[in-house]
């Protein structure tokens, strides 16, 4: 009898000790008021907020630092306008292009593929189908509409405005133009910039790219489309 009593006590102690390590619950804290912030923390809760939710949208009409106005609505007409009008304000430099490549690898390559041929891992695994190649002649993308699509999204592609900022979008657009040129077998932005001894802007070079590519694209098309 005594023995069984001892055993039950030992079991109880063991089980209480073990139950302290419940991974679904937070552990005990010595002095919780040292841990818990006095001010409101990101994603915190507070009685003074609607829904108690601390995370909020900025007040309407507020302008973030470094904001650049973007006067293009999410319409087909504005997309066509952006395609021709919208120009890259940043310098075509190795630094910007490398940065664009790194960002492209994070945000775009899962679908569009590292080469921009629309064969990213999500396409390979058939999560997304029919992702067009950047070299698709029917689309004939430019830097302007690459930027536009990043802001507004297009068809099955969502908007990336919340993930990449103004400069990063242009950096990505630069890399996209490089990919498009590489798919068409043309020199990239930096090379064509070097070739142009005149004081041409980067946008001119990208447009030149498009002009050059149209002929060669026709031959590439059949391969691209059957992919």
């Amino acid at each position: 009898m005594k023995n069984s009593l001892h055993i039950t006590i030992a079991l109880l102690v063991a089980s209480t000790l073990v139950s302290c390590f419940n991974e679904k619950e937070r552990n005990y804290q010595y002095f919780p008021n040292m841990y818990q912030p006095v001010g409101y923390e990101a994603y915190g809760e507070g009685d003074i907020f609607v829904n108690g939710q601390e995370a909020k949208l900025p007040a309407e009409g507020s302008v973030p630092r470094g904001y650049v106005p973007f006067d293009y609505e999410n319409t087909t007409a504005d997309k066509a306008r952006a395609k021709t009008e919208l120009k890259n304000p940043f310098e075509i430099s190795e630094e910007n292009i490398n940065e664009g490549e790194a960002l492209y690898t994070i945000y775009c390559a899962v679908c569009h593929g590292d080469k921009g041929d629309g064969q990213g891992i999500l396409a390979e695994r058939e999560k997304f189908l029919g992702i067009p190649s950047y070299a698709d002649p029917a689309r004939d993308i430019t830097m302007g509409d690459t930027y536009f699509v990043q802001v507004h999204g297009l068809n099955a592609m969502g908007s990336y405005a919340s993930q990449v900022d103004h400069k990063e979008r242009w950096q990505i657009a630069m890399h996209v133009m490089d990919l498009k040129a590489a798919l068409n077998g043309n020199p990239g932005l930096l090379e064509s910039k070097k070739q142009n001894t005149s004081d041409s802007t980067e946008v001119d070079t990208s447009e030149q790219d498009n002009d050059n590519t149209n002929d060669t694209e026709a031959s590439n098309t059949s391969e691209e489309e059957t992919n």
Partner: protein
Amino acid sequence: MKKVKYRNLSSFLSFLLLALLLTVSTSVSAQDEAAPDEAAATESAGGDVAAGEDLFKANCAACHKLDRKATGPALRGVADKYDRDWLHSWIKDSQAMVKAGDPQAVKIFEEYNGAVMQSFPQLSDIDIDNILAYTSQPKTEPQVAQTAAGGAQGTGDGGGGVTNDIVLGALALVFLLLVVMLFLVTNTLKRIATAQGVEYPEKEKRTPIWKAFVQNQFLVLVTTIVLLLGAGYFAFGYMMQIGVDEGYAPVQPIHYSHKIHAGDNGIDCNYCHSSARRSKHSGIPSLNVCMNCHKNIAEVAPETATEEYSKEFYDGEISKLYDAVGWDVEEQAYTGEEKPVKWVRIHNLPDLAYFNHSQHVTVAGIACQECHGPVEEFEIMKQHAPLTMGWCIECHRETNVKMESNEYYDKIHEQLAQKYGVEKVTVAQMGGIECGKCHY
């Protein structure tokens, strides 16, 4: 006599169970095999369906699904709805038709809020016919075959679970039977023995071991000391882990699997946690980031399902997302009714310590996994590191500062390296363990 009878019974029973087991398992596997045959049996009529399927997936699937509205309308049976010549010219250049004022074209164009369908001049008439043959495949038949296959697999999987249970149950029963058998055998043996007048020798009374132990004072002293030391050791260990949430894995409102997203599909951590690159916090992605993909992916592929989590379970979790973000799958539009998800915070440094993500992710170029562990393998997110001060300091002592392509600090890095007589400066040598760096 009795004994022999019992033994026969047990072996007979176990054989019976084994036979039952085998029949059940074979019937289940037979079901499994039948399923793919059925699926393969779906044949087509008219047009090259296989070629059409490839073309459809390459060209159309970005905006059209067969049975569900996406960017464009669902395309199953579209060949019956419209005139074939009209379809041909629509696919080749829909905008020209809209501009020419074709009433049907204008109607569709307006119905889909002026979304422009890409023109496909490169598709030949045969290509288009193949695609139409693919889209004209009757829904019910492949669907039924699929569901039948899915169902068969489902019951097969379920059957697998059941067979396992049966095997375990049967084993338990066999063991139970054996134990009972043994008990009965010894009982009968004993009875026979007593009947035949054999007597068991009685055990001698001895001083119980605990009494002997208590009488030896030296032993008691030593044991007490050992016990006290041991208790101190464990008490210290227990006290030290208070306030440390290593392994904390709360139940989240939506079952989000990092394994599927970051592991199987190879999506970069920064894709969703984009603010880790440039802010103190590695933000929880807002739901619009989920919808970048899940606008298109409303259900998981059958092969995503695991034994633990079924396809239905995962699909249910995606519909929880739709519910939270207010997305109407049928209409493919936002309803505007949002219910923010109350994610449960896992990693939480006390307010007395300052930590900045961008400093570690962008400046130092440290992989997320260094601190968060192999998240791409976590089905359920948990805290990998203890997040104690000792843990921070250890890393700061060992990690070399990334000096490449950081010309601004070239000179000071050089001087520090000279001062310490080393080639590479660690974070600690640069002042990374000064109190004021994190506590202020």
